[in-house]
Each structure stands twice: as C-alpha cells, then as structure tokens.
C-alpha cells in the first residue's frame, strides 16, 4: 500500500488574505482547530473542504495542496 505525503500552503494563503484561523474556519464552516491541524499537516481535509478553502483564500487548489512524496507501507 502507498501512503501519500501531502503538503499545503494554507497558512500562507490565509495570512496573505489577512484572515485569522477563526475567520477562515467560519468562512468554510469548520472549527478553528481543524484549520490549525490542516496548516501543520496533521489533518487531511476532504476534497470539498480543500475547494472551500481555495475559494475562501482566492487560490487554485494545486497552489494550496500538493503531493510531496509517496511512501511504501505494509
């Protein structure tokens, strides 16, 4: 099985848009904790949430999230 490492630029995009975690969370309908975990790469959001974050920050999806690497796992 392959494990995919995903990286993101959500924090940068949020700061560029001058939004707090709380404000972005409200815009996309999740909790501040979820945004915090996404920013540090501890939670992989669904495609729906990725698109909503991209829309809220005015970015393209692949500017925000990309595959860093793949690891083989048992």
């Amino acid at each position, binding site marked *: 099985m392959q494990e995919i490492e995903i990286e993101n630029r959500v924090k940068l995009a949020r700061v560029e848009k001058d939004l707090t975690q709380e404000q972005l969370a409200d815009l996309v309908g999740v909790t501040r*904790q*979820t945004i915090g975990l996404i920013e540090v790469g501890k939670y992989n959001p*669904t495609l729906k949430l990725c698109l909503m974050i991209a829309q809220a920050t005015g970015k393209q999806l692949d500017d925000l999230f990309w595959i860093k690497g793949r690891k083989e796992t048992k």
Partner: protein
Amino acid sequence: MNNSFKLDERSERINGLISFCILMLTQVALGLLIAYKRYIQGLDTAFYGNFGVVLLISILSYWTIRLYLSGILPVISFRKLVLLYFILVVLIELSAFLISGMPEPGLWHEVLYPFIGVAVILGFYALVAYLGKRRIQKATGE
C-alpha cells in the same frame, strides 16, 4: 470569538473511528463474556444465549451494511455459486461424518443442516454482493 459547539468533517471522522473501535470492543467483550460463562463457569446455554443473539445480530448487521455500502464484494455467477454450494456441503458433510459418524436415527434431520446453512450463507452473500454492486452502478450511472 465564536465559542459555539460545531461539528465539522474532522469531528465526524473522529466519531466514526471511535464508534468503530467501541463497537469492536463491545463485540469482543460480549464474545469473552459468552466464553467465560460457557467454559469457565460451565453454565447452560440459557444463561448466555441472549448475549449470543445480540452478538450475532451486531456482527451480521455491521458487516452486511458495511459491505453493502462499500459495494466491494465480487458478484459470483449462478453456476459458480451452485458449484461452490455443492463443494461446501460435501466438505462439511464429509468432515462431520469423519468426526462424529452417522447421526442417530432419531436425529437424521441433522444431515440437512449443512444443506440449509450453506444455502442461507451463500444466498445472503449473493444478495449483499448483488445489491451493493447495483447501488454503486446506479450512483455512477453505469
């Protein structure tokens, strides 16, 4: 600051994971309880039969719904199903005969159990596999 309690996709994912773990723990605990009552305490079925029914319903309904919703069970053709049915019945009847010999004349109906049991299990499998596949095909417009 917004302090209202909010359930988002992460909370729902955690809920699902916790529910799964607790369900598995409950099923294992019920199984252990039945084994304890039967083998350690040496009690009669009347003392733990209800737990067995609950455990069976829980395991069956969980896996049936899960396999139906995921639609991953391979659909076996009718010919293969019939072949599998006869192979399983022969194997079970043969091993039962080798272990316990022929049943007493008054208990002749025990010979029928593998016929009925295998038919129920394979029929159930075929139904879940077919309905699960049809559900996915409907959703994808195939």
